[in-house]
């Protein structure tokens, strides 16, 4: 059997499909930002940005950039009608206090039980930077990861135990990848869905871990 990986856009669509009307959501820097472009028309989702924004809108038209109004990646954004500004301690209180429904993050590695590594590869000489990653990982009602299943060397980024420095312990509920969507549970991985034509046994071989059907 042959199978096709989900493209970046298809992966963003897959994540967007699980975001419900009325959800308060934080989309991490990089791939997760794309999810905003695929939310179903007609639903209202309120986007949070760590630097003190609720109701964040899309990028402004060229020439209308205002660099007092930026997202977590420091790129210019807009504010939707109904949006609000607040200071940093309130913004992270919103996060840590469990008021956000969903947070979508990128990752270097996720363990079968939901440990997350996404802030440092621990390389000697690398300059460490954590930003809001550790706060986001443990704060939202649900933390989802969005990433390619395999790294550039073909190794699974879903692992028995993270070898990179941890961002949070047992904090990831779901992993959306280009090959499959998996749930992390205290008992290990559980299959939510996979791309057409990919056999369950082949997915388990790629990941190197058992996956409950």
């Amino acid at each position: 059997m042959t199978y096709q990986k989900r493209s970046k856009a298809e992966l963003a669509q897959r994540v967007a499909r699980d975001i419900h009307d009325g959800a308060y959501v934080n989309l991490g820097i990089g791939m997760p930002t794309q999810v905003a472009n695929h939310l179903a028309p007609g639903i209202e989702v309120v986007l949070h940005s760590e630097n003190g924004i609720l109701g964040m809108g899309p990028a402004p038209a060229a020439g209308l950039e205002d660099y007092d109004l930026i997202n977590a990646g420091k790129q210019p954004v807009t504010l939707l009608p109904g949006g609000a500004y607040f200071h940093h301690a309130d913004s992270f209180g919103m996060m840590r206090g469990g008021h956000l429904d969903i947070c979508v993050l990128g990752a270097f590695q996720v363990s079968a039980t939901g440990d997350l590594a996404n802030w440092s590869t621990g390389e000697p000489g690398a300059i460490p930077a954590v930003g809001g990653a550790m706060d986001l990982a443990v704060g939202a009602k649900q933390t989802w990861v969005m990433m390619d299943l395999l790294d550039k060397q073909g190794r699974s980024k879903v692992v028995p135990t993270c070898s990179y420095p941890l961002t949070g312990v047992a904090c990831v509920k779901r992993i959306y990848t280009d090959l499959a969507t998996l749930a992390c549970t205290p008992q290990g991985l559980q299959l939510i869905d996979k791309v057409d034509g990919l056999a369950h046994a082949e997915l388990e071989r790629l990941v190197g871990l058992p996956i409950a059907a």
Partner: protein
Amino acid sequence: MINKISPSIADALSVVRDGHTVLIGGFGTSGIPAELIDGLIEHGARELTVVNNNAGNGDTGLAALLAAGRVRKIICSFPRQADSHVFDGLYRAGQIELELVPQGNLAERLRAAGAGIGGFFTPTGYGTALAEGKESREINGRHYVFESPLPGDVALIKAERGDRWGNLTYRKAARNFGPVMAMAARHTIATVHELAELGELDPETIVTPGIHVGKIVCIDRVATQAGGFKGSV
């Protein structure tokens, strides 16, 4: 009579001393008090500890303060950016100390300092390298790490409007760390783009009440520059 309006940046910064901990507002370039940082470079204070979310963008502002060799230590959440080459060079050369703090812990440590809290237990960072050596506690089945308050000698804040009592409003997401830093420092110095008469600022919209502000300097408005991402440099 209370009059917190300062005639110049140099006058407002006269409280700064060598070795001070200086809280600098801003997230990337949004809300960075660039004029006050330029004034701090001119002031000449050395051996400073700087608290900011980042560690400078490009070659101006905080990056220029670092390049001038005035900063002994930086406490921040995200030093590494597309345009943080000044910090990167100093760090690799061992010429600056870095204390890396998760962003929400940074904000809450500042808030705790300003609110008279002796520290707090937070779930953020539990089980990670950034919690090593710190006290932890299980509360209602969840693990928490103890974090200490982070007070400053001086805070440099960019605000939008202010009055002679020191009341401040902010502009858009440039508010970011301003309100908690204003509370956390012994001397808070804010720039504003507009001075209002007492009573002119709608009391419902004042974000930082004047009790937390020592001096205000009115400066010309300059559009905030892009910074912190690829393509901004």
